[in-house]
């Protein structure tokens, strides 16, 4: 699919050398986007637990992966890598949707996922190489009373619908409204005027969010750093999320380099 050009390109630079894997970003993401806690039931038919420990059933829009250098003690090294939706320049998920429930057509480059239109065929989940899309196998159930006040930023989804990280898109709209209210230009937001929930809450500031095309935003220069890389870069999808690490093994793991393969 031909990559669409946008004037603004919302993206992230995630410092893998700073991330401690605490999980605050995952919690903040769920709270912002009204992801219901996984109901504890045992999927008797499949014989697996349907609770939060079964990662095939949880809706981790943002997942913190634990990666390591595959060496034995004491050379073993570990790192943590938060993975949101990559908002690819040429997304694999968009062309396969039979009902155009997902599209990359808005200034800013965020790949939209519109729940009422989705028919739940899950072609997009098969297409995404980052496993960034999640399916509502069941209707969401909140523990009694917890649905009292949901976040007004994201609609609730019924079963049968695919969902994914949307860079807290409602915050983008709110930032634009605030800019208009203050007499500024909604199409030229300052660095930090629009920030995702995960980047906002991170205690070590490992997640940086901003406009990759805007030199006034921190992420612009960082994305071009020699220490930055993207996951599965050679697939050519053009992800808008960059990872930063000064460790060679993290770079090599980011695109499944074989032990003797020269890095591109």
């Amino acid at each position, binding site marked *: 699919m031909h990559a669409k050009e946008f004037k603004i390109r919302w993206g992230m630079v995630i410092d893998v050398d700073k991330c401690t894997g605490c999980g*605050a970003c995952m919690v903040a993401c769920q709270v912002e986007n009204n992801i219901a*806690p996984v109901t504890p039931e045992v999927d008797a038919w499949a014989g697996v637990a349907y609770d939060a420990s079964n990662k095939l059933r949880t809706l981790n829009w943002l997942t913190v992966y634990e990666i390591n250098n595959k060496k034995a003690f004491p050379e073993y090294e570990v790192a943590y890598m938060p993975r949101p939706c990559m908002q690819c320049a040429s997304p694999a998920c968009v062309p396969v949707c039979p009902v155009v429930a997902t599209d990359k057509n808005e200034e800013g480059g965020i790949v939209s996922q519109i729940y009422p239109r989705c028919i739940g065929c899950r072609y997009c989940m098969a297409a995404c190489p980052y496993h960034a899309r999640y399916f509502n196998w069941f209707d969401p159930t909140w523990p009694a009373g917890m649905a009292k*006040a949901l976040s007004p930023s994201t609609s609730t989804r019924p079963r049968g619908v695919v969902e994914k990280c949307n860079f807290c898109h409602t915050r983008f709209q709110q930032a634009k409204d605030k800019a208009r209210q203050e007499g500024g230009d909604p199409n030229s937001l300052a660095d930090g005027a629009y920030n995702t929930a995960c980047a906002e809450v991170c205690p070590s500031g490992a997640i940086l969010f901003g406009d990759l095309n805007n030199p006034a935003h921190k992420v612009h220069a960082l994305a071009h750093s020699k220490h930055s890389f993207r996951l599965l870069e050679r697939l050519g999808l053009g992800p808008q999320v960059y990872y930063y690490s000064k460790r060679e093994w993290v770079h090599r793991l980011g695109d499944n380099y074989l032990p003797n393969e020269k890095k591109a």
Partner: protein
Amino acid sequence: MGLDRRAFIKFIVGGAAGTLFTPIPWKLADDSSIWSQNWSWIPRLKSGAVTADATYSKLCSAGCAVKVKKVGGLAFGVKGNADNALSQGGVCPLCANGAQMLRSPARVAGPMKKDGSAFKAISWDEAEALLADKLKGLKGQSGKVAAISGDGSGTANEVLSGFLAGLGSSAYYYMPSDQTTMAKAWNGIMGGSGQIGYDLEGADLVLCIGADIMDAFGPTVRNQKAIAAKRPIEGDKTVTLLYAGPVRTRTAAVADTWVPVSPDGGAAFALGLANLLIKSGKGASLGGFGEFAELAAKFGPDAVEKAAGVKTEALMTVAKALLMAKNPVVVVGSGSGQGGGVALAAAGVALNALLGSLTVLPEFPKAVSHAPDRSGLLAKDVVAWLADVDAGKAPTPEVLFVYEANPAYALPQAAAMAKTLDKAGLLVSFSTYMDETAALADLILPAPHPFERLDDAQSPYGLGKATYLLATAVAAPEKDCKSTPDFILGLAGKLGVDLGFGAFEDVLKAKVQAIGADWDALAAGGAFVSDRKGSAQADLGASALAKAAAAPKAQGTLLAALDHLNIGTGALATPPHALLTVRDTELYGKDLFVQMCAATAKSLGVSEGAKVKLTAGGSEITARVALNEGVMTGVVAAPLGLGRTAWDPFTKGKGDNVSKILAVSAEPGTGYSVWAGSAVSVAKM
């Protein structure tokens, strides 16, 4: 002309054709599709003004400065308070879920009294009358009224401990933590005053011995912010972070170097470093330095390798780094955040003194003058006391108050401790949630959720400067709860114990005034930071240290219990949205996973996924094996915080409680209870 069958059919067909020219089929199709998108059991969003009110969240032990987000007045989320000097906008995974915990199914709805095996709702007046009646007869009998507090920093402790003192009892204890271990060392054995602090903000080298500063030690958000500020993403790093411990913890994951040290070898490692520093000419102006130098000399590189498993080269590298740094800081603690010995704590103080970075924070003035000194209480040994109660060496309390703590679950040898707690005549829990201790209790008097109540924090342990923070009520109360210090003040009034105040708000206002801070600035979410330093006078206590440091090395496989903040704390089970941050290499279904490296697994005769039984301290747990090369050989790492038996369906019955197998022993020379780095036997099932 009659209507025959053909005409009738044509009439019907005409009608059908006609409907196509009306809105009926199109409207019905459209509306049905909308109807199918609006199932009544999918909750709707609320609309209204979105506001963010500042407060201090004490859901995690140290606390996070947060802004509670509300829509139309109802709290729905949390974000950090970027203007607060402590948190600088960061939030820990527990406080990030604070708004949801307001409505947790585990919340206690109101005061409850145990009736047989179930709980019966009673009124606050009835509860007060019941307690007043019981306590009247116990006035003046030391040890008959006792309290255990899990809040290491709140002024509410002054109210509760002052109340106990007014009743003639000094049996006030804090739940074990790195803070109490250090108090035992600094305020106890070493005779120091004030609270040990760690100036991470000014450091150019931070050596953590056991203390998992990014995950389990002290104010984790401030620790992360302080280190991150000195390691800008592009630019020069101005701090080197070293982690010394048995497991590659989250701190080790981002550290520059991980020095594997066996779980019981921290003190030997620290003394070995002290020895090298002294030999290089460093000195410390603490009492008993000569004796201490002699003790340190016994910990040459070979002795350290034997006791701690650290190779000479690694020891030398760390010592060299400490000597070359301009402002090195050594943070000592335990990966489990509790159970460490005085030996390591004192050695840590000595190291900082040798390096010229000993920071002591002065205590803030008390608001309740009758209350005993905080540092004295922090140095008391709750585990030893409960063991004495069990053995009949100390009187069994007739009334035992439990405030912001969950001792039946979180104390070492938890199963035995729970039995001892049950012996108390009237076990009163002030827990907001139905935790394991509340489930055992005879009376539950629920305190409001941190967002619903007035509270404070005095220098949460781990900070580098004396800091005071205020928490105000920003959410409307969801249940029939009462602030614990307010309840105690009312009770005190009924029993003729004069604490000098009628309401907790007055206590805090007096406190703020005594400190010289501005109430409004604190209520708006600011932190009061003082540059005043405490007195660094103390005695190194080498004689007690010598015995403690010479303790025989534990045999067999050692247990490294790990405290992960996202799994919860002793007093707070995993919040609902933090459940999926627990890895499937820690918990899967109902199975707890323990971590060990391949070499350890081989020597124990187990493989990945094998079911094992871990036994220690007279208790056992079952788990499965996960291979993790980040765990030292001869060590098994296990996550704390699982295996809940109360709370809610999300956390109940998942995994097992590792606190059960934390085996307690008495530290030679100091007599304090220790359990960090205890042995465990692992058997294949």
